């Protein structure tokens, strides 16, 4: 049986650029492309993939999952490091174009908060749109957004 293998490539090529930007907002540019590649490879072997109704949403959720896993893994590996120093160093390396205090504030957000902020301010999605994409409730989106804005206000206001 001949399988049409082009469709997976087309899906990847269609969504990878925006997913990498999304991942950059979550974990910075260094690992963003790898996180997207991991997410895609994982979904490709998942049973939901062949019949998924919304590959894009699945990919966004998986990228968020991968980013959170990577953040946790990094935190475990560097548990003995001083957290403040590490955050400052990462902020400087990952987001050199941002003022250091703003970069540190961004890294102080949880991955979920970062995801909501990125989708809200980059893709101009409404809370309902973000909720649909990430498969969380409207209320959760508003809560993450409110907390993130409060957190960022300290350095941006």
């Amino acid at each position, binding site marked *: 049986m001949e399988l*049409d293998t082009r469709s997976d490539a087309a899906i*990847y090529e269609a*969504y990878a650029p925006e997913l990498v930007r999304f991942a950059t907002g979550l974990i910075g540019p260094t690992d963003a492309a*790898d996180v997207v590649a991991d997410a895609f490879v994982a979904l490709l072997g998942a049973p939901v993939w062949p019949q998924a109704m919304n590959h894009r949403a699945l990919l966004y959720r998986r990228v968020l999952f991968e980013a959170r896993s990577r953040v946790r893994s990094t935190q475990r590996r560097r548990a003995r490091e001083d957290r403040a120093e590490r955050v400052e160093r990462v902020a400087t390396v990952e987001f050199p174009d941002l003022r250091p205090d703003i970069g540190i504030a961004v890294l102080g957000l949880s991955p979920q908060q970062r995801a909501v902020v990125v989708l809200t301010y980059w893709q101009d999605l409404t809370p309902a749109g973000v909720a649909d994409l990430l498969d969380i409730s409207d209320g959760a989106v508003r809560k993450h957004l409110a907390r993130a804005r409060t957190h960022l206000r300290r350095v941006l206001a």
Partner: protein
Amino acid sequence: MNTLDDRIHQTVTTMLRAAPDPLPFEQLSAPRVVREARPLGLRRRNLVAAVGALGVVAAIVGIAVLVSYGETTGTPTSTSSGLPTYQRTEYSQSIGASCNDDAPPLSSGEFDAMTFESWADHDGRRYRMRVTYPDGSTRDVVALGDPWSPTELYVRGEARGRRVLCSDHRSTGGEPGDAAFWSLSPMAEIPRRPDGVPQVLQYSDLGVREPGRTEDSRGRAADLWRSAVSGTHESSAGDVRALRQENNWFVDPATGLVLERNWSEDIEGASSFSSREVLVLSDHRAASDAMFATDGYGLVRAQPNPATPSSTGSPTTLGS
């Protein structure tokens, strides 16, 4: 936007400006083991994996899903009678596609309607699917061990569902399952990952139940579960278009079986696709060993599955 919003917007824009290019698709690696506890362990760099390998793995192992049954992942169709369970589903699709380049759409297959029949012999751990096309031709799949990740998977016949592919956007159409066992509602227990997440998502994972009671296209009382997503689709050429996808599941309130699923996808000015899967029969019925015999089939997958130990018998004697 107020000042804070403006500044957050500016901050996000600055952050995302640093985004690197994605890895080329050809540099992604194929999963070695599919749906293991953490299948991401495969590294994507420095591993040669052809696009075809990815597609084959996905199609073979991605045992067709988007199925559902109730709120749990129990085995919905198991029976104390020991008789295999049976589902018959009518599938139909409608494709509209235009390509944005000079090349005409590539098409494969020819039929927009077909009948799916699926048998599950739980005692023998054998699963059979037969697709019958309007001209009477058939395609068969036999999965042994487990329908989700079979130890052995056999196919016979060709997929003849119509599919359209443009060079500048994804393909549309086809038929459920490809080279995999498929049923509208699950015919075996859905496996879970170690963290408890089901490996096959159901309507209750993907959709939201609409209030009240409705009817499916055959007038059967049903609960409606719905999922709708609006967004954009970016082609490989960078052409961005509005995208909307909608999924409606009509679920039998008494049994939890999916009676009907309607799916649609519209990419503005590029393609539209809709499909309908209607369960017309679900019961228990005897099935002979011949039903699961694999003479004349091609073996497309054979591998030990730790989650579902393989039988020691030959394919034709399993469960006998």
